[in-house]
């Protein structure tokens, strides 16, 4: 870049202010005077190539750093117990299947202490009551985005703490109910999230152990009154007392996931167990959801798979791996 600037300044203009305007003004009068269009094209192409080569020479691999996006795609299967008093006062138990993809990346590769994180989760579940006389199926979509502050208290232990803003949309269906056959779940929350990571470095591979916890701090949630039908809410537009401010006084939840990331031949596998619990109360109804299950997936940095044999150069900084 230094050479390029000096070439522009050779025409007597001021290169620091408007370099590209100067470039045009330098050469265009010359082209008009000679009327040699072929020569001008060659000259411009040569100049462009020279710029390119000069810029490459100025960037050695060690001086420029790149922030990688660490992506984890995982599938989970859980046993779940739900209680939705709008549909039924009884507890329903069953299984849920889900898919999660999350992304983490340092905000700046030069200052690897602040990372952005986003996660998309979709889940579906099927449950039945204890007497096995009725079913509730549910579908859930969740998107989270937030930031983590990274600290390294000792050795290979890394801690992260941050806030995640999430939006949760779901529907529970109990088809044999009359006028209340479904219950919408809608909430948006600011969550506190903490992650502890420990890296075990062996001769052949680096194994990552991770414990992640998350709890909602404040937000907004949709809960209809127990006796109000969705006809009244949606068709007549009676939203009174359906949206509630939520915080620790009426919404408590904790998601805990312990995972181990194991690089094998070409893929870094992601195995985990999770236990999530949620309680929220509004309009004299207490909703509960307890979920425990297993997680299986794989993880990679965006530019290529981070298998054992394909490690990134040192100037590619990953928020997820050493």
């Amino acid at each position, binding site marked *: 870049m230094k050479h390029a600037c000096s070439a522009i300044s050779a025409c007597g203009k001021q290169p620091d202010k408007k370099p590209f305007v100067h470039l045009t003004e330098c050469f265009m009068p010359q082209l008009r005077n000679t009327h040699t269009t072929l020569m001008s094209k060659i000259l411009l192409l040569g100049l462009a190539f020279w710029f390119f080569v000069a810029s490459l020479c100025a960037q050695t691999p060690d001086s420029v750093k790149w922030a990688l996006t660490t992506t984890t795609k995982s599938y989970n299967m859980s046993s779940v117990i739900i209680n939705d*008093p709008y549909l039924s006062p009884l507890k329903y138990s069953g299984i849920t299947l889900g898919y999660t993809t999350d992304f983490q990346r340092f905000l700046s590769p030069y200052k690897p202490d602040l990372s952005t994180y986003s996660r998309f989760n979709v889940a579906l579940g099927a449950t039945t009551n204890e007497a096995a006389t009725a079913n509730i199926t549910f579908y859930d979509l969740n998107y989270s985005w937030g930031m983590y502050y990274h600290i390294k208290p000792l050795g290979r232990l890394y801690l992260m*703490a941050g806030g995640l803003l999430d939006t949760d949309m779901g529907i529970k269906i109990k088809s044999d109910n009359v006028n209340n056959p479904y219950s919408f779940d809608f909430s948006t929350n600011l969550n506190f999230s903490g992650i502890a990571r420990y890296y075990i470095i062996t001769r052949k591979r680096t194994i990552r152990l991770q414990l992640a916890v998350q709890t909602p701090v404040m937000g907004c949630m949709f809960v209809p009154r127990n006796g109000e039908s969705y*006809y*009244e809410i949606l068709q007549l537009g009676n939203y009174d007392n359906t949206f509630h401010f939520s915080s620790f006084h009426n919404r408590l939840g*904790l998601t805990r996931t312990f995972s181990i990331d194991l690089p094998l031949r070409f893929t870094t596998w992601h195995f985990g167990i999770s236990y999530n619990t949620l309680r929220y109360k509004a309009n004299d109804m207490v909703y509960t959801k307890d979920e425990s299950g297993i997680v299986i997936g794989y993880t990679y940095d965006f530019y290529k798979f981070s298998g054992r044999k394909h490690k990134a150069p040192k100037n590619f900084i990953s928020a997820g791996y050493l």
Partner: protein
Amino acid sequence: MNKLKFIILITCCSSLFSCIDEPKEYANTYQGNFDALWNIMDTRYCYFDYKKIDWDSVYTVYQPKVTKTSNDEDFFELMGNMLNELKDGHVNLYSNFDISRYWKWYTDYPSNFSSSLIKKDRYLGDNYRIAGGMKYQIIDNGKIGYIYYGDFSNTFTNDNVKFIFEYFKNCKALIIDVRDNGGGYLSYADMLAGYFFTKNTITNYICHKTGDGHSDFSQPKAITTNASGIQWQRPVAVLTNRMSFSATNAFVSKMKIAPKAIIIGDKTGGGGGMPLSSEIPIGWMVRFSTSPMFDSGMKQIEWGIDPDVKVDMDITDESNGYDTIIEKAISILDE
């Protein structure tokens, strides 16, 4: 130090779970199920005050009988009898072997309808048309259009109604027969009424329970019937009987104030409370009224709507192949 703060924060969050009580659960015993059902109705049923029902005394009467029941059938019957104290056609208990119901709201009255009679050549005949669940035919020598709509769960569209009205374009009046229509979707009741209003009109109000108390209700919310782009602006008669219930009852309450509409037949069966469902531990589902509806003058419609012209079926007419209520409607519309 940071690690310590982190652990303290997580511990605090976990301890906060004690702030929200777990939902109350009843034991899956006869006594537990009885208490669960009694409590669901006590806190959520909407007509205790209006019907002047002492629900506590119902508990006193029925609870001692619980210990005497020895099987599910007997217990189901006992629970059904307890629910029948509410005298509400919208209250049912559903088990996997039976459905309890209160039917006196129409079995104690004349039926005022014969499905075979309306299929006589004088009325629908054999060649009637069907559109969106509506059976229709031109009667009275081409002067009157006749529609029989027997279920507000049957979907119909503006296109269906447009075709029907087009078919009746030379008729000077219309009969909509909703006898033996036990209800269905409230939105269809509103939609059907909309063809007979020339402007948007508040036709009903609805409210819902807001707490456990028998008098805890929300402010009434107006239900506006929007005038449809397809209009029938000639006289219309709505035929009713006691089996015109629930959403049909709501339809009739709307038509009661529709211009050029007249209600003929028997008082409707009522069912003014929108029902919701719940469950008891044994797995039986219970349906009950939770949202009372009112007419445009804020009067309850739970016990039914009086017709403008009260007519009962005549046995002699019936034996001669005449439907007294349709004949009365024809004579009024012909005037």
